[in-house]
């Protein structure tokens, strides 16, 4: 169990973390989602001990962690660039922690070999122990970094944008691998990412961070369907936001209306909204087809762009004329209204 209480951190005048509190359950896979500069990496580096918090405490299984130096924390860290030791072989990279750690080093070569081989096997690099780091692909480096961290049995494994340096295909494979490895080991994983899909896919819970503050901590489907604030909704990249002046009639209350892209219907202009519906009139601009999904772009009189997403597995593509006006309609109860219109750009 990892407990983060009231952590603050500033770099000069810039506030990186502002009173962050979190509690991570034993064995949980937690996603930490935020845009760049949100403080997500800073939080990870503070947990690892690379940076010192200005205020606040971190407890691991009830024991305070903050005063301990990095090498006494038992917190594994996989950095974005992998940070492998370039002068050592794959085997020696993974064996490094076992051999040279301060607490409980493993001296017997046979024991080192057994544990390193076991871990290389777990990450799927069984035969590559003798390779030099330079001879590895990006995905293999990633696995070595993971094996190196996990072989010393950390209490927590921190992953700083672990998939950021991989190409799209590899990224999908690694997410599956990561989840499998997490299940095998049963320790806390904290996965920092700026990619909302990755965060939702990986985490048992997702923490959304922006400008050093926690905006929401919830299960992925809750974050996705019920974002706690306008910022979270914006950051998910799946919501259209409307000021009241963008909407026809006085359908909604004050504030900003958020509606998910795939919950909007496109109707011919002149469509009259039924009672529980909200409606706005917009001009069709263009469409973007990507296999199972088609995204239609509309523009409002205010210049704002609205995206409507049709999932082609259960909807037929709409025949729309560029430059023509259409009615965009959604069920009022499926929209969320946040009461801070000044944030709406």
């Amino acid at each position: 169990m990892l407990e983060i209480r009231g952590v603050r951190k500033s770099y000069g005048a810039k506030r990186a973390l502002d009173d962050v509190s979190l509690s991570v359950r034993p064995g949980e896979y937690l996603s930490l989602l935020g845009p760049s500069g949100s403080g997500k990496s800073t939080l990870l580096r503070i947990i690892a001990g690379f940076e010192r918090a200005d205020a606040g405490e971190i407890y691991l299984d009830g024991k305070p962690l903050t005063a301990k130096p990095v090498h006494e924390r038992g917190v594994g860290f996989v950095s974005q660039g992998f940070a492998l030791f370039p002068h050592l072989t794959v085997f020696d990279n993974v064996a490094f922690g076992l051999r040279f750690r301060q607490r409980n080093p493993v001296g017997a070569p046979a024991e080192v070999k057994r544990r390193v081989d076991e871990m290389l096997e777990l990450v799927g690099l069984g035969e590559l122990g003798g390779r030099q780091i330079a001879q590895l692909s990006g995905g293999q480096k990633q696995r070595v970094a993971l094996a190196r961290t996990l072989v010393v049995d950390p209490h927590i494994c921190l992953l700083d944008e672990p998939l950021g340096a991989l190409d799209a295909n590899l990224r999908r494979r690694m997410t599956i691998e990561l989840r499998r490895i997490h299940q095998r080991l049963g320790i806390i994983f904290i996965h920092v990412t700026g990619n909302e899909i990755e965060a939702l896919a990986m985490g048992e819970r997702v923490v959304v961070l922006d400008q050093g503050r926690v905006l929401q901590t919830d299960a992925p489907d809750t974050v996705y369907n019920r974002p706690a604030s306008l910022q979270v909704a914006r950051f998910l990249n799946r919501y259209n936001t409307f000021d009241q002046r963008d909407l026809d009639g006085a359908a909604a209350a004050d504030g900003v209306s958020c509606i998910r892209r795939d919950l909007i219907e496109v109707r011919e202009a002149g469509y009259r909204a039924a009672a529980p519906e909200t409606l706005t009139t917009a001009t069709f601009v263009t469409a973007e087809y990507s296999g199972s999904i088609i995204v239609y772009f509309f523009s409002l009189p205010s210049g704002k762009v609205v995206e409507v997403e049709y999932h082609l597995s259960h909807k037929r593509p709409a025949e729309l004329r560029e430059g023509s006006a259409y009615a965009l309609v959604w069920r009022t109860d499926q929209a969320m209204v946040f009461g801070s219109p000044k944030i709406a750009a």
Partner: protein
Amino acid sequence: MENQPALRGALGLYTVIFITFLYAPFIVLAILSFQSGPEGGPQFPIIHWSIYWYKHLFGLTPPSRVAPLPIGDALIRSLILAFATMVTSTLLGTLTAQAFRRRFTGSGLVFYLVVLGMMVPGVLVGLGVALVSTYLGVDRSWWGTTFLVHVVYTFPFAFLVMLAVLNRFDRSVEEAAWALGVPPARTFRKITFPLIFPGVLSAMLFAFTLSYDEFPRTLFAAGGDLTLPLAIYGTFSVEIHPNIFAFGVLTTLFSFAILAVYGLLMAMSVRRARRVAIQEEIA
């Protein structure tokens, strides 16, 4: 620029002239070192080619009016001194550069003080050390005052080399080692040092060569036992014979040998790094 033949020609000519100026004096000395002896002097024409003066250096010629060069002890001293200076300065330079990775209070000021120290004229430094040691009643010696002066002189060079090396060093590699439970001192030994070793070699080379032929500071700081540059200078005041040229050729060959060893070590430790770089370019 590649397709301007005139400019290319001019630059080529310039390079040739530059190289000529760099090596011509040494080549002249090398040629004259094969002058016949003991009657041949340090000037052209060559009376006839011989290796007399090389034999003379090692005392293999019958006694003549030309005394053997009094530089045997000085050579040993200079080598020991250069070696000790190299080890000390590189160690201090590496540690200081390591300290500068964290911007400690006053680090800017300390940096400028260290670097400005390089600008002080050497003769004055030597003179100053001589005055202070006389004042303090410390005897001047090649292993004491001179060693001190050499370390002070070469330390900033080693420091700057190591600072450049550590500036490019990827900190996350060290962090990775700490996070594995490896304490910082051991991390430095097992990870940082092997990775910055090419830089350490460069710093060592700088310190060694600077110390080995240091003259102005040593002139006043050395006391009675001379270092090699002082001993050579001493022979000039009597009469110059080609034996000094022969010695020059040998010591230069020795330097080349050291450089070759350095190059070999460097190539070995850089090859791996280069492979990484190439690999990443492809990926």
